[in-house]
């Protein structure tokens, strides 16, 4: 399949707008689950407001949250897909810019030193474009994540050492959730990266927080056991929705792993606020399909 770059541009534009307006089904189900288990009245009230907000956003065709985030596009190239990588990235960038100007969306992106906003949601190395590969025949998949700053500002890395063991990893996750408190707009998805190099560890935490649907499990058995244990533990802290108390601190803790060095024991935490937005489209010879 030879990729139609005009289609990629349209997809990049449509996905940004769709992501900020329509929450994925698994996240909506997550709200339902928490609303059913929350024991504190105040927390139940906040969850009800958040559910009402999702309904208002859909009824008024509006954004669920004002933060248009840092735009991230995760591109997965299947077997037999032919595309010029430079052109692909440029098409995504054009789509991102057009979503911002044509909808319009707030451009939340500035130069890191001058703080100048180009009002395009673009800048140096932004939108972030990650490329990976899959076995899917003749398929180009694009996932768009508008990553909000309230949760992104609560990202932590610790290069623990082997002598500290897995206990250091667990304590770091708990302390990160405590430190974030209400600043990160709980209930959150707590993404945890374990292992790898420093940069890979943080990347895994981001993938765990933003790309894994609620209800999914870590592919590694040990990682899956750990995320289950940590999900229960985090929700015993009592931080609650908005940091105002309750059982619903996190929808889930997601763990992603990578092999690491004999001398290293790195752990990273990246959080996703309750506006857990992502949208995906698949381009195949049959056309464009947007996932619900």
């Amino acid at each position, binding site marked *: 399949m030879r990729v139609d770059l005009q289609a990629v541009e349209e997809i990049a534009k449509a996905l940004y707008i769709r992501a900020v307006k329509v929450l994925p089904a698994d996240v909506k189900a997550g709200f339902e689950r928490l609303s059913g288990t929350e024991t504190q009245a105040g927390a139940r009230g906040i969850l009800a407001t958040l559910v009402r907000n999702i309904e208002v956003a859909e009824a008024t065709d509006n*954004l669920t949250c*004002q933060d248009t985030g840092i735009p991230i596009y995760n591109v997965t190239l299947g077997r037999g897909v032919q595309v010029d990588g430079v052109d692909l990235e440029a098409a995504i960038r054009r789509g991102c810019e057009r979503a911002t100007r044509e909808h*319009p969306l707030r451009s939340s992106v500035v130069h890191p030193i001058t703080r100048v906003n180009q009002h395009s949601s673009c800048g140096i190395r932004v939108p972030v474009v990650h490329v990976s590969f899959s076995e899917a025949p003749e398929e180009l998949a694009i996932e768009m994540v508008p990553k909000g700053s309230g949760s992104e500002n609560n990202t932590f890395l610790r290069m623990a050492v082997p002598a500290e063991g897995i*206990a250091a990893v667990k304590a770091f996750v708990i302390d990160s959730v405590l430190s974030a408190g209400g600043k990160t707009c709980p209930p959150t998805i707590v993404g945890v990266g374990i292992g790898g190099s420093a940069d890979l560890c943080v990347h895994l935490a981001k993938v765990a927080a933003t790309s894994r649907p609620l209800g999914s499990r870590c592919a590694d058995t040990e990682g899956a056991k750990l995320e289950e244990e940590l999900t229960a533990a985090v929700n*015993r802290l009592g931080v609650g929705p908005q*940091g105002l108390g309750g059982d619903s601190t996190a929808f889930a803790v997601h763990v992603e792993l990578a092999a690491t060095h004999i001398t290293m024991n790195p752990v990273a935490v990246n959080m996703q606020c309750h506006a857990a937005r992502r949208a995906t489209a698949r381009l195949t010879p049959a056309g464009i399909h947007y996932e619900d």
Partner: protein
Amino acid sequence: MAHHDFTMPVTEAQARALRVGDTVTLHGTLYGIRDRTQIEMFDRGRSTRFDLAGHAVIHTAPNVRRVERCARFPAGYEPVCVGTTTSARMERFTRPLMERCGVRFVIGKGGLQEQSHKAFADLGGAYLAIVGGAAALETTWIEAIEDVDLDDVNPESLWKFRVRGFGPLLVGMDAHGGDLFRDVAARAQARRDEVLASLGAAPR
């Protein structure tokens, strides 16, 4: 716990009467400010033509659409999506907002800290917590963008909104030392060791 309906601005006495756990709904004028707005005002010495005395400010930078000025859009901006950002980043600006501009209420999410606490007690003010991330709902409480100042730092301009039924907001910090966020955080911190022990990760 009482509910208060305020048509802005309010007096110091009205602000001091609030207690944590009360709820508040605002009507009339509401000003929107953000990190950059306050950096310009308090670090770079820029002033605003708006009189913020007795008013509420909300930590926001809205999504807007530029339109022709008319009765409905007097500032040439249509509100698209107006939400609230995390307050903690702007902690150091609470006192200058109150001392120099006479602001009474700060509206935000996630709470503020010790310096703001002291400012609310010394000068008579309160932190009103909104449900963060509920921007579609919040937008329905905005009637219009009436005016805008410091618009060269758009979207972090100083926005003048006209609101009706803006709330209910929860009094999260009051002028008497009450702070719901601090209390929840302290209780959560107190559970830390027990939670770590249950994970087999007690400190050695």
